[in-house]
Every structure is written in structure tokens, then in C-alpha cells.
């Protein structure tokens, strides 16, 4: 499967996106391995296979913009420019982590970069993003907010409440639904009626169904939605069709009775791998294989450094547990 190559994005930018997608892939791949060997505390949800969406969104964001993420949030964190050292250290529960070890995989956040945090409650990020969009609207500086959520999350009532309110108030908000076809271990088709994208029609919110494994298509869609939002014309719903090629949670084989997804489905989507597809475009655009290999080497170095940083970092002091509840006091 090839990519939509009509877009006017330059090769340099594409290379940058390639680097970011590879970074997500490599960091998450190692996180998966570390989770399976029991090195990581807590559950770990990987977004491998969905990297194009995070990178496309990240490419459309400006300083002062905000995004809220989900339980599957490492890709968003890195796609939006978060520091891999802080990410990995957080997931290792280290004092040097993005949240000082208080958050963990499901709560990685970098407020300084507008990454309002992964969220362990499906749908909750939509509420937070609506608030960020309200801030952006009040500030009148052309900023926007983005709510990532999954196809499973699209059945939570808060999604509809947010469509009504954001349309009513013309909030600068983009609903980015990453439809990977599954909600944990249940196919979303078996718990959902109709098209998610079309749910916005009743609210007069423009929507489109996008090939979420095509970083150019995803970028096109997000950048039009962002332009619309920045111009004060309100929200857009983007349904990004994608697939998680890994499990729902890395530990799942330890507690499930067996496989739950048809192997053909996985095989079919592996053929549409977003990184492979961008790789093909870059090659078509004349980028040498060696240059792309060099990027991967670079990414591996950065990844190794991030893991080394995490492993070398101290665990938090126990007393830190009682801090950060309230601003301006110890507790």
C-alpha cells in the first residue's frame, strides 16, 4: 500500500516525521520487552502501529497548543516532542521521570510542551481538552486543543457532551479518534453501532474518516482541522483508521485464555505499517536507504540513552509521596 503523496510536505519534513515515528517504535518496542521481563512496574499499553497519527498531530501543533492523551499515550508524548529520557524514566518509576515517578505509563505528561497527560480513564481526556480549548478561546492567540481518544472511548457520553458544547461555543478543538478496531479484547464493531465519524453530523461538526496509517493523509486532515479551529470556526472530528499491532497491554498473555484477534487481520494491517509506508515514499522521493538507516541508528542511540538514563536514575525518596498534592504546601 502506498501513501497519498500529493501533499506539499517537503522531504526534510518527511524525514523528520520518519525519525519521530521510528523513535516511538523503538522506544515502545523496548518498553514492551522491559515490561515482559518484569523490569517495569505496572501495566504498559503500546501504540506500535499507530505512530503516524501522533506524529501528524505533533507536526500541526504550535507553542501554546494543548493535547490530551489516553492510556495508550507514549506515542502522543513523543510525537508531540516530549523528551524520551523523561518518558522512559517515568515508566521505570524513577525520580527523574516526567512526573517524578508519581504518574507512570498511564499518566506521562509534559505540561511545558502542551502534553496534558495520558489518562487512565477512557474518555476523560476529552473533558480536559475541552477545558484547554476554552482557555485557548479566551486567550484569543489562535491556539487550539486536541483530544485523542480511542474507538472504544467514542461510546462514552462525554464525547457527545463535548461535541455539543464545542460546536455551540465554536471551541478550537480537534477530536482525534484513533480507531484501531479494538477496545481491550473486544472488537469495537461488536459494541458500537454505526460510524464514529458520522456521530458528529447531528452537531454540525465536520468530520472525516482518514487513513491513520498514512502520515501524509493524517497530517492533511489535522492541518485543515487546525486551520479551521485557529480561525475560530470550531471543532472537527477526525476518525483515524489504524491498528495496534501489539497487545492491548503488554502483560496480556499472562492472563488471557488465548488469542482474541484474527491473525489475518493483523497480517493485513502489518502490510499497511505506517513506518514502512513512509519509508517507501521517502525512497520514491529519492532518499537513499543508507540515509534512512542512519536515522534508525540515530534513533537507536537516542533510545539506548533514554533507557540508560532511566536505569541509572534513582528511585524517588519515599517522602516524595507526600508532596505535590497541593501547590504551595507540602500537603
Amino acid at each position, binding site marked *: 500500500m502506498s501513501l497519498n503523496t500529493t501533499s506539499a510536505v517537503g522531504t526534510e519534513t518527511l524525514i523528520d516525521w520518519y525519525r519521530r515515528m521510528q523513535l516511538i517504535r523503538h522506544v515502545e518496542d523496548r518498553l514492551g520487552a522491559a515490561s515482559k521481563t518484569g523490569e517495569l512496574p505496572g501495566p504498559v499499553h503500546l501504540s506500535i502501529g499507530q505512530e503516524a497519527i501522533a506524529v501528524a498531530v505533533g507536526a500541526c501543533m504550535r507553542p501554546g497548543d*494543548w493535547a*490530551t492523551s489516553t492510556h495508550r499515550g507514549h506515542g502522543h508524548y513523543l510525537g508531540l516532542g516530549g523528551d524520551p529520557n523523561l518518558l522512559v524514566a517515568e515508566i521505570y518509576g524513577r525520580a527523574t*521521570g*516526567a*512526573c*517524578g*515517578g*508519581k*504518574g507512570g505509563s498511564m*499518566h506521562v*505528561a*509534559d*505540561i*511545558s510542551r502542551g502534553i*496534558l*497527560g495520558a*489518562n*487512565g*480513564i477512557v474518555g*476523560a481526556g*476529552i*473533558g*480536559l*481538552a*475541552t*477545558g*484547554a*480549548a*476554552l*482557555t*485557548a478561546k*479566551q*486567550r484569543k492567540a489562535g491556539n487550539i*486543543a486536541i483530544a485523542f481518544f480511542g474507538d472504544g472511548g467514542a461510546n462514552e*457520553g*462525554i464525547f457527545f*457532551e*463535548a461535541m*455539543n*458544547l464545542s460546536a*455551540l*461555543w465554536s471551541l478550537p478543538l480537534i477530536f482525534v479518534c484513533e480507531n484501531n478496531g479494538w477496545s481491550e479484547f473486544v472488537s469495537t464493531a461488536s459494541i458500537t453501532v454505526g460510524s464514529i465519524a458520522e456521530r458528529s453530523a447531528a452537531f454540525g461538526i465536520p468530520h472525516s474518516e482518514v487513513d491513520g496509517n498514512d502520515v501524509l493523509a493524517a497530517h492533511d486532515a489535522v492541518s485543515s482541522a487546525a486551520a479551521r479551529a485557529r480561525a475560530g470556526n470550531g471543532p472537527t472530528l477526525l476518525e483515524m483508521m489504524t491498528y495496534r499491532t501489539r497487545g492491548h497491554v503488554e502483560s496480556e498473555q499472562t492472563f488471557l485464555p488465548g488469542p482474541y484477534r484474527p491473525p489475518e487481520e493483523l497480517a493485513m494491517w502489518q502490510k499497511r505499517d505506517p513506518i514502512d509506508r513512509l519509508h517507501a515514499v521517502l525512497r520514491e522521493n529519492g532518499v537513499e536507504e543508507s540515509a534512512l538507516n542512519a536515522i534508525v541508528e540515530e534513533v537507536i542511540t537516542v533510545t539506548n540513552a533514554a533507557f540508560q538514563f532511566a536505569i541509572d536514575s534513582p528511585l524517588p525518596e519515599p517522602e516524595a509521596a507526600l*508532596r*505535590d*498534592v*497541593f*501547590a*504551595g504546601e507540602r*500537603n
Partner: protein
Amino acid sequence: MARMRMTQAINQALHEEMARDERVILFGEDVRISIFADTRGLAEEFGSDRVLDTPLSEALLAGMTVGAAATGLRPIFHLMFGNFFYTAWDAIANQAAKFRYMTGGQVTMPLVFMAVFGGGRSQGAQHSDTMHSMLVNLGGLKVVTPATPADAKGLMKAAIRDDNPVVFLQSAGRGGDLGEVPDGDWIVPLGQADVKRQGEDVTVIAIGAMVRLAMRAADVLAKDGVGVEVIDPRTLRPLDTDTILRSVRKTGRVVVVDEGRLSCGMASEIAAIVAEHEFESLKAPVRRVAAADVPIPFSPPLEREVLPSEDRVVSAIRSTLTKR
């Protein structure tokens, strides 16, 4: 200094704080017309960009409050009745109460959730709950509930200026009482109890509308020569245990009066603290006067039976005098 009702005092605080800081915005259902009159006139003064009537979508609105606070506004969400918190509970309990902590202190969360709570007016079970103990148990929220108009103004201003999520709960029973309210920048710092009446024999700790019952009970006992000290915590989290324990050391006899249900309520919390920390000072068991462990019924005789009454406070105080 002017005499006014609690809702007027709150209204004054909101006017002053919105004028002082343009990041303060307020939204909720019917906040422009204002059912309780506490937010009346704000839209006219500060415009419909800062005072917003909303759809009925509490779950979203509370989440929006959290998101707006984390990104630089100082939002106030008026939820109308405390029971409607339940519709928004995820954003209150999983987001507002935890967000700063989960990010390792990366954000401040200057937000206020406000609502009227409590029974006594035949509003039925779904409009009469007292939910402050649940809010306190979440750990990440500050919780205040004033008993006088002056405290209402001062606590609301402190709540708005605080960089943390504050739940401001107004007792349904207290909106109408008049009281003197200082003009201008009158702040009641969060976390400071107030000794509403001094006494040497028994300490009564009373919350919100219960302060009035406690004061009346104190009058009754004064006639018998019993000096009742009435303490109003005003802030339930963080709780001013120093002021409470100091009084207990003096009197050795304690009654806690709360409108919340008894089990796992604020009265039990205060009783447990006193019994743990002032065991040696106590001359009698700590008595709890609280709502019965049932939903709040509609019909007046039923509701009176369930809620604390002056009589029950008086007899609880008397019971502490007979022991030892």
C-alpha cells in the same frame, strides 16, 4: 461592613474576584439568571465570555474545569446542587483530585466547584445529600463550607485565589440568614477553624448549617450553667485540628455535629482524631450527632427525624456531662 445574606456575600466575593483577576471565569446551568442569586449580575458586569450558561452536561463541564485550570484560567463551575456532583464524579475524583499529583506537580489547579448541599427543605433524596466526607476522602481536594455570610465571602475569595481545586459547599439551610460582612478584601484563609463561642465545659464542633443548632444548644445549656465552646472548622480539608484539640484539652468533653450521614462521615473523622490524639484529656466519650444512615426523605416529619436537631445536640452535650 454591611448586613447581608450568605448568597449576597458570595455574590460580592465573586464580583470582587472577577474584577481583580480576568482569568477568573464562571460557568454552569442558569448562572446568568442565577437560581440562588449568588451569581446574579456577573454576566452583566463581566460579559458573556466570562460568565457562561451551559448545557446540562456535568461530566463534561467538570472535566472542562480541570482542563481550563491546568492551562491557565481560574474557572469556577457552579453545579447548583451538591447531588449533581455525582454526575460529574469522575472529573472530580479521578481528575481534579489527582491531576497535579499524577503529573508530579507540573500544574497548578486553581479551580472552584461550588454547589448548595444538605437537607431540611423537602427537596427529596436527590437534592439533599451532604457529600463533604466523600470529597475529603479523595485526598486531593480542599473542601470548605461556611456557616456565616462573612465566612462565605472570605472563604470564597480564598478559594478563588488558591492554586488548588477547592469545593465550596453552601448549606441549603443558611442562604437566608443575615450577617455582617466586611467590605473589600476580606479573606478567610483556608484551613483555619473559628471558635464561634467560647466555653469551658464542652466542645461542640459543628459544620455548616449545624453551627446554628450548636449555638442554640449552647444557649440552652448556658441556662444550666454549662459553658459550651462552639468550633466551626470552616475548612474540612485541610482540617484545623490544632484549634479543635486545643479546645478538647480544655474541656475534655466533645460533641461533633454534622449534617452528613453518620457512617464514614465528617463527624466520625473528627471523633476519631480527637479520640486518637486527646485520649488522655477526654472525660467522656466523643458523641456524634449526624444524619441517619438513610437517604434524605421528603416529608417534613421524616426529614426532621433523619437530620440533626437542636434537641439531639442538647442531649448529646448532656450525655457527655454524666460520664466520669
